[in-house]
């Protein structure tokens, strides 16, 4: 299978989040960037497993500026064969999805994988947008993925349960926990990644339909009320009459 994996840059999960320019921009100062965990741990690793089992190629694609090359090399070190970067700062998911769709239209892929969401914008938008942009079937929130010939079997989350579905490739799949385990790149992978092909392609003219105009920090929590471990009756009564949650 010829698999395309969409990867996005995200701040490391321990990053302190702050904003600059009058709270209109994410302050990248001192922030360590990683491959968005859903893209890396689930989508990319499962793509590699499918390739190892059945042959084919794994291409990663990223929409971003030159600063994204570092996380692209990381994904190559984990084992992707080659990489494509669409050279523009992504403004919203719609723009990024249609940039990737334009590339995917010109290059035949059997399977396109995305993480279920990014840990910075948490929109869960890109996969569905890409599927619609390409008019391909879309399996959202897949926790298992298998391929036999051109038939793709996936387990997906539905409201109140899980469902096993089947779809003919090509298809777009958004990947969630359960699909694969994180892989730590080894020295050989890191060395090999340096010389793997990274193609930079110019961006297309595409509108962005949404704009983040400002950011703020959530309100501070009020101080914690400590309760004696012997007095669980008191806790229950506070949850009932003060917090009004039971």
């Amino acid at each position, binding site marked *: 299978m010829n698999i395309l994996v969409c990867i996005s840059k995200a701040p490391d*999960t321990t990053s302190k*989040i702050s*904003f600059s320019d009058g709270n209109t921009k994410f302050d990248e100062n001192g922030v360590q960037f990683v491959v968005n*965990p859903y893209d890396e741990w689930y989508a990319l690793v499962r793509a590699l497993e499918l390739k190892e089992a059945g042959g084919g190629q794994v291409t990663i694609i990223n929409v971003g500026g030159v600063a994204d090359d570092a996380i692209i090399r990381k994904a190559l070190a984990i084992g992707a064969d080659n990489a494509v970067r669409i050279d523009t700062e992504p403004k*919203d*998911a*719609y723009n990024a*999805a*249609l940039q990737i769709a334009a590339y995917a239209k010109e290059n035949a892929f059997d399977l396109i994988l995305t993480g279920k969401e990014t*840990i*910075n914008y*948490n*929109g*869960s*938008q*890109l996969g*569905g*947008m890409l599927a*619609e942009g390409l008019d391909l*079937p*879309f399996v*959202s*929130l897949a*926790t298992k993925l298998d391929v036999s010939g051109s038939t793709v079997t996936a387990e997906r*989350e*539905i*409201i*109140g*349960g*899980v*469902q*096993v*579905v*089947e779809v*003919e490739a090509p298809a777009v799949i*958004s990947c969630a*926990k*359960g699909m694969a385990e994180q892989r730590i790149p080894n020295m050989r992978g890191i060395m090999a990644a340096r010389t793997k092909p990274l193609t930079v392609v110019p961006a297309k003219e595409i*509108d962005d*339909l*949404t704009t*983040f*105009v*400002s*950011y*703020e*920090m*959530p309100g501070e929590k009020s101080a*914690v*009320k*400590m*309760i004696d*471990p012997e007095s*669980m*009756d008191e*806790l*229950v009564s506070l*949850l009932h009459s003060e917090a009004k*949650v*039971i």
Partner: protein
Amino acid sequence: MILVYINSENGISKASYEAITYANKLGDVVALSNGSLPNEELSSMGRYGATKVIVDRAVNGEDQQQLVRMIAEVAASENADTVVFVHDISGKAVAPMLSVRMNAGLVSGAISLPDDSGAIAVNVFSGKAIGNVKVNSASKIISLLPNSLPPEEVGENCSVEEVSTQAGEARIKVLSTKKPEGEIPLPEAELVVSAGRGLKGPENWGMVEELAEKLGAATACSRPVADIGWRPHHEHVGQTGVAIRPNLYIAIGISGAIQHLAGVNGSKVIVVVNTDPEAPFFKAADYGIIGDAFEVVPRLNQAIEKFKAS
């Protein structure tokens, strides 16, 4: 006109009434659903502000792209400029596809109404911050995060109109569906009881399950607990698991690492049980108990029993 898509496969959830209430503050509301839920139940959306409910009985929604075509068709015929979804498993799949189909900017996971400038607040950086988003296109799509505003009853049941749309062929075939009976799905749960590595082993979850059962709560866990197989993956909450915002989150033997907090800090009330007074979770808690879970939880179970009997 505001069109609200409601997934009524499992009945009409509280989050659905929230979405109708939200839409009712933006304009005249028409609700749209599909499948087989009886008219009496669908018409209840009128009480929250829907002027009518449109339903396509023939669309089962197993291929969510059929829902996209159905919604786009009804949005056009009803002249809707805004489509509202619940930001749940269904809305997360359907809204982005509709955004491309309708060329309509999508605000996903909205937690507020538009302000005077039209900006809508959403959680970003896994709940560590809030972003204000503006839509640049004429048509808009908003998916509303559950528990963001209380549902308000404003009227009477409304009429239900059955339609038949061109939803097209399904390209996804469902082979099997598993819906565990009696279990409360975590993403929609109002009350959640969660435990971490402090419980020492999977054999000790009995008291946690008992607590959840007594409260009518869903169960959750920290990431290492799911990774080592003590609990199923779908219970893993946090930045890389499920993000939840229940009314009550009880955390037992969980340290409160930043990645864990990111997925639960939207909870209305947080109770933390931990032996370590320095556990970071206490800083995010409303009620804290410094104590051994193996003593505190059974005591709490008894206290709830007593409370329910009174």
